[in-house]
């Protein structure tokens, strides 16, 4: 097979990338064969199966290995709702994975695979990529769950068309992440694609395929990837525990627990099973007001407990003694804010 390999000086590279479509029998790669890049990417790509499966909510998505210990980076979604998932690897292994945490800023999630002593191939989170508009890209993801078991995930090709802030919406809500993303012309905005990877032609990571969103401007589905350094940031925040761990339901409850009233906050009404814990109002003269909490702050963690939902905050407060300071992590806009509140014990005033 005639595999054209173009090795050229950077100034010529742009001309070459405009030409590369259809001039070789295979994708033209700089110094590496496509088969090598494909194998490298396939070994690091996983298929994730979890909750969902109802009303256009798929129960599958993509992910990539980011540590030798079996940490998988993916996008937060209903697929991860049960806190554990089944992960299919390219070598036909099927492993259980615990959801380590979710980064609310980027909507990135980390899953840890069960695999005693196993050493997994992975993408280097520290890799520094230098993407530029017009560069050729490959995307690896399990869109539409086309691949099952050990079948290789789908590969799509495209060009980085723009580096631009994400102005998008999911349903009628704006996306939380508003920073720069890589807009590409490959059809990666598809069911199951989120959590897949976009790489350059040498196979090095450029970004992670985000959730299905539409342009706020035109309503068109956006094909985009989150920059790899932001992915690394999010994964780091999750693994470092800054965003809290899942709530351990077996711990003993304190004699007296903190309450919403003792902190001076009200959350938006808990109307659906997974109502996000947004602050609805802050009571006057309360610890919350003193700490300058604001309506629309999202409660990310209470103490070291991760709070993805209204219910999680209730459970976390139950496990928080009322007579000690409470550390709360909030998402305000796209910033993380840590505050410490001293609950007011009723009757002590």
């Amino acid at each position, binding site marked *: *097979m*005639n595999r*054209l390999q173009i090795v*050229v000086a950077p100034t*010529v590279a742009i*001309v*070459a990338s*405009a*030409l590369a*479509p*259809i*001039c*070789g*029998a*295979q*994708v033209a790669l700089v110094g590496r064969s*496509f*088969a090598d*890049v*494909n194998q490298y990417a396939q070994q690091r790509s996983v298929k994730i199966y979890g909750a969902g499966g109802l009303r*256009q909510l798929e129960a599958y998505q993509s992910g990539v290995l980011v540590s030798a210990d079996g940490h998988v980076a993916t996008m937060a979604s209903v697929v991860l709702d049960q806190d554990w998932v089944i992960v299919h690897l390219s070598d*036909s292994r099927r492993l259980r994975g615990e959801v380590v945490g979710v980064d609310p800023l980027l909507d990135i999630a980390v899953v840890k695979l069960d695999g005693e002593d196993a050493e997994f191939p992975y993408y280097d989170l520290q890799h520094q990529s230098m993407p530029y508009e017009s560069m050729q890209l490959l995307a690896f993801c399990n*869109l*539409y769950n*086309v*691949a*099952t*078991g*050990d*079948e*290789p995930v*789908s*590969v*799509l*090709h495209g060009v980085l068309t723009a580096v631009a802030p994400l102005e998008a919406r999911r349903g009628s809500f704006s996306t939380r992440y508003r920073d720069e993303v890589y807009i590409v012309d*490959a*059809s*990666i905005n*598809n*069911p199951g694609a989120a959590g897949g990877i976009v790489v350059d032609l040498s196979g090095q990571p450029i970004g992670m395929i985000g959730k299905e969103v539409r342009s706020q401007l035109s309503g068109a*589905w956006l094909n985009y990837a989150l920059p790899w350094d932001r992915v690394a940031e999010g994964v780091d925040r999750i693994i470092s525990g800054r965003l809290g761990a899942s709530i351990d339901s077996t711990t003993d409850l304190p004699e007296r627990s903190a309450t919403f009233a003792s902190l001076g906050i009200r959350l938006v009404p808990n109307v659906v099973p997974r109502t996000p814990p947004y602050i609805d109002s802050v009571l006057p003269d309360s610890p919350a007001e003193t700490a300058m909490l604001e309506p629309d702050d999202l409660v990310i963690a209470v103490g070291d407990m991760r709070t993805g939902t209204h219910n999680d905050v209730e459970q976390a407060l139950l496990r928080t003694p009322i007579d000690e300071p409470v550390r709360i992590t909030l998402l305000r806009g796209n910033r993380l804010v840590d505050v410490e509140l001293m609950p007011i014990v009723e009757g002590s005033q």
Partner: protein
Amino acid sequence: MLRLLSVILVFIGSQASAASVAPEVLEAEAKRVRVIERVSRSTIAIFDSRGQGGGSGVIISSDGYALTNFHVTAPCGPAMRCGMNDGRLYDAVLVGLDPPGDVALIKLLGRNDFPAAELGDSDVVQVGDRVLVAGNPFLLAEDFRPTVTYGILSGTHRYQYPAGTLLEYADCLQTDAAINPGNSGGPLFNAAGKLIGINGRGSFEKRGRVNVGVGYAISINQIKLFLSHLKAGRVVDHATLGATVTTLDDGRVAVDDLLEESDAYRRGLRYGDYLTSFAGRNITTANALKNVLGIYPAGWTVPIEFVRDGDVMAANVRLASLHGQGELESLIEAQANKPVPIQPPGPKDGEDEPQPKIPNIRDLAAGARVPELPEEVNKVYQARAGFANYYFNDLHQQRLAEKCPGWRAFSADQRLEISGVDSRGHEVAIESTEQMGSFRSVRGQFFANFSDPNVPNDGPPGSGGLMAAIREWQTLLSRGLEGFDEAHYMGQLPFGLGQSRHDCLVTIRNGLPTYFYFNRQTCHVAGLEHFTADDRDPCTVRFSNFQPWDSAELPLMWVVRFGENAYAEFTVDHYQQVPLEESVDE
């Protein structure tokens, strides 16, 4: 897209004059232009005769045979019109259908020098290969010049579940080249412009009927297996092993259900055996079997390997029809009342008009929908139940009759006498007429009386019906196809020691089928299989060492088998015909 490409080309052209471009790049560009030009010539736009629905197709031979999707031709009936790159419109006739595989073969009429695409090898393609898609998405081209899109192969050996009960895409190719409604039936080419697949399906379920970067093409290698069957004017069925398998946790694939009347059972496959190989492919999952099984037409024989108690066993297994008699027709009928997964493209500008439904295949066959066929089409169309177009089947029957060197070697009103010796020097003697037969060998002499069709003739014991088989052969070579209740050309099937492909003619008398296998080069009857019951192995006779006899050629070497057992093997030293009157006088 074509326009966009030319814009890119213009841009490249201006770059070329502005800066010096590497000669390899210019060469690659020129090559690409040549390839696109070539593939555009063999790509066709297909319209039904009322000029409403349509799709795409690709010409595969200079006499006008072209491939497309079943779901494209379904609304057309037996006649369609095909627009070519040169802006001309040709009448075309339906030839063959593979409804489960979503493939149709049509024939363009009026020329003998159609520009044909070169068939590639879809088993050697790899993920990442550059590919080109040509066709008529959204029926954009008023002048029939195809739209060309490019992409890469995103996946190979993909399995896509049947949409409803039909249109299963097994072992298909997945591409990110734009495939839209109207591209259905059109070609997928590799970068060299060789045909590697027929586009027909996309993952359209969530985003409406437009490209989302996930298109599927039926592999050309699958179609190659079906092609002779399609050329036979048949409605071709897919195959079943007669057994189902399950993937075990330890990664083995075990038989978890098995029909006792299946050939797989007769060849020794049993419940609980581990299937390891099928048609030369390793089987590591149940899906892998589904994938490879899906590319074979019913009636094909494939090698399998399986493991029992640590022993590896191998067998050649004949695959049965996936659908029962008449079932395919009623499934197609049911399909007609359901929405089509990829419908023919609708009207332009997103008008929401109802899509044409797939007509009942019986209507097609009965000609109910064809009140006025164009004259050219009418000459090459013949309706018959179970066939897409019996005219083409008849052509092949005539071809075999004309070319077979043994045709009419015998006279119907004479007794055939054959004498020979087996490998140990024992004498073998055969006598056969339409009414009776006898076979004498070292095992003794056996007689058969064919006058009562209700008495089964499976003698001599252990042969599976050798005397009846000889009588069928004698009838074929004396009276031709008129000697049987029914006859049709099947297409090509593997037969014989090397399992090479032979032209297969099926005859039926008193409800019992005989498969005659013709050598594709010499057209000798290289063997036959005579069935005495549906759930029983046939008596198989293989002929070789053909020598002149009168004005014909007859085999001197006979090998007779029944199932796994060799029944007889002998060399003929004498063929002779004796008038029946004489034999009565004796």
